[in-house]
């Protein structure tokens, strides 16, 4: 069993195609809840979440004496991760099948990326 990161992006602070009107929001929530129910029931769901925007981020890096803190984000870019799922899947085809369901539910593009390692580092 492998694990994959399914991430979605905001472009310059906006998530393209995000629901605007209340009834759109309601339908969106229903689709996402149904998707996550299915993920949970099949043992697929590991973790997921929606992130605050890059303006809310802080960067820490090792300095000479102390860790230096600056206002984020780490990379000045147009696109930033807006939300993600981490899922269990047998192989890429299985992960892509879940990816399709996520796209159907949230209606914007996602990136599917395999984890090289997960869990605690073994000494």
């Amino acid at each position: 069993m492998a694990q994959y990161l399914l991430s979605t992006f905001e472009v310059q602070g906006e998530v393209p195609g995000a629901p605007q009107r209340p009834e759109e929001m309601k339908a969106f929530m229903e689709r996402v809840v149904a998707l996550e129910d299915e993920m949970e029931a099949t043992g697929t769901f590991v973790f997921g979440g929606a992130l605050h925007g890059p303006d809310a981020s802080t960067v820490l890096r090792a300095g000479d004496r102390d860790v230096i803190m600056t206002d984020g984000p780490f990379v000045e870019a147009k696109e930033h991760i807006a939300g993600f799922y981490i899922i269990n899947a047998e192989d890429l085809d299985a992960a892509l099948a879940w990816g399709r369901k996520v796209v159907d539910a949230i209606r914007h593009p996602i990136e599917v990326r395999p984890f090289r390692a997960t869990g605690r580092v073994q000494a």
Partner: protein
Amino acid sequence: MSAVERVFREAYGQAVATLIRIFGDIALAEDAVQDAFVVAGERWRRDGIPPNPAGWIVTTARHRAIDDLRRSARGRELHEQLGAVDTASQPSDAGASGEDGPVKDDRLRLIFTCCHPALKREDRVALTLRLLGGLSVEEVARSFLVSGSAMAKRLVRARYKIKAAKIPYRVPGETDLPSRLGSVLSVLYLIYNTGLDDPERASLRGEAIRLARALVELMPDESEAAGLLALMLLSESRLPARTAEGDLVLLRDQDRTKWDRTMIEEGQGIVRACIRRGRPGPYQLQAAIQAVHCDAESFEATDWPQILALYDHLLSVMPTPVVALNRAIAIAEVDGPDRALTPIDAIAKELDTYHLLHAARGTILRRLGRRQDARDAFERAAQLAATEPDRRFLARQIEMLGEDEAHIRSTPR
């Protein structure tokens, strides 16, 4: 080609595919099969070719791979994972035919892995030629017009993605099959067309036909795979007449006695079988159009209404501007050139950088007597044409227009 080379071509893809099933690792499989061929080169020269050369290669490569695994650290790591990978992914087949023996589906699994849509298109082509076609890295590099080291890097990257992302080594299930098979077919057709466009890379055509044949053998029920094979065969059959002394010869002017009748018969036989099955698709329809052309004893004797009907059908399942252009050319033959101009102008903007649009437009305008417009169209086509024979052909069309004009000027009104 020496006997070893011949066996190499035939057995390479099969052996690599089998070793990947057994060991679950592409790089290891490739190294082992290459080693086996080196051993074969020495041994066979001395002792003669064994009765089952492909089986000999698989057995030798398998022993090599096991030796490799025992020796290397990577091997120990792989060895631990192996039992799990092997039994989890291929429970039944290995047992059914003995773990050493090639399983018929090995190559089929491998082609679906190589042509996975999660890989870059050019990587799919490169992997297919390398792993299934048995071309060397240098040969694959030449067919892409890149250096050997650049191609080696590209293949390493593609193999890395297969392994890291766990692209499965498996024939896709019913739901995914149509789109995944579509990717396989388009990779094979791209290989064929690359060989068609560039005489330096002509050997790719034979490679594509060989791979398509293997695919049809492995998936005899897939009509589109058969359609693609027929399309390639029928296109290939007319190639000897397509050029004369390096110049392009239009279908209209081709010496049809130069067409390869054996290939035509095979291609037409496949098309007839496809029609009986009644599950048409883009490749079958394109093959059917070629089959009608190949049936005609002369350009004038061509069943153009039949071709136009096939293009109507093709456009409904594959609504691309290039199909619309070819349909318009058929309209010119059925209903006359004046009826073809509107559909061509409708796609002119989309295909503005495609030289064949302007060449077709020029031909139709000339038939309508609009010489200046025809000249403009041919000149635009010549600017866009990528190959020397195309440019020479278009220059000749422009010259001929000049001759027409001179002829008209000298004729008393």
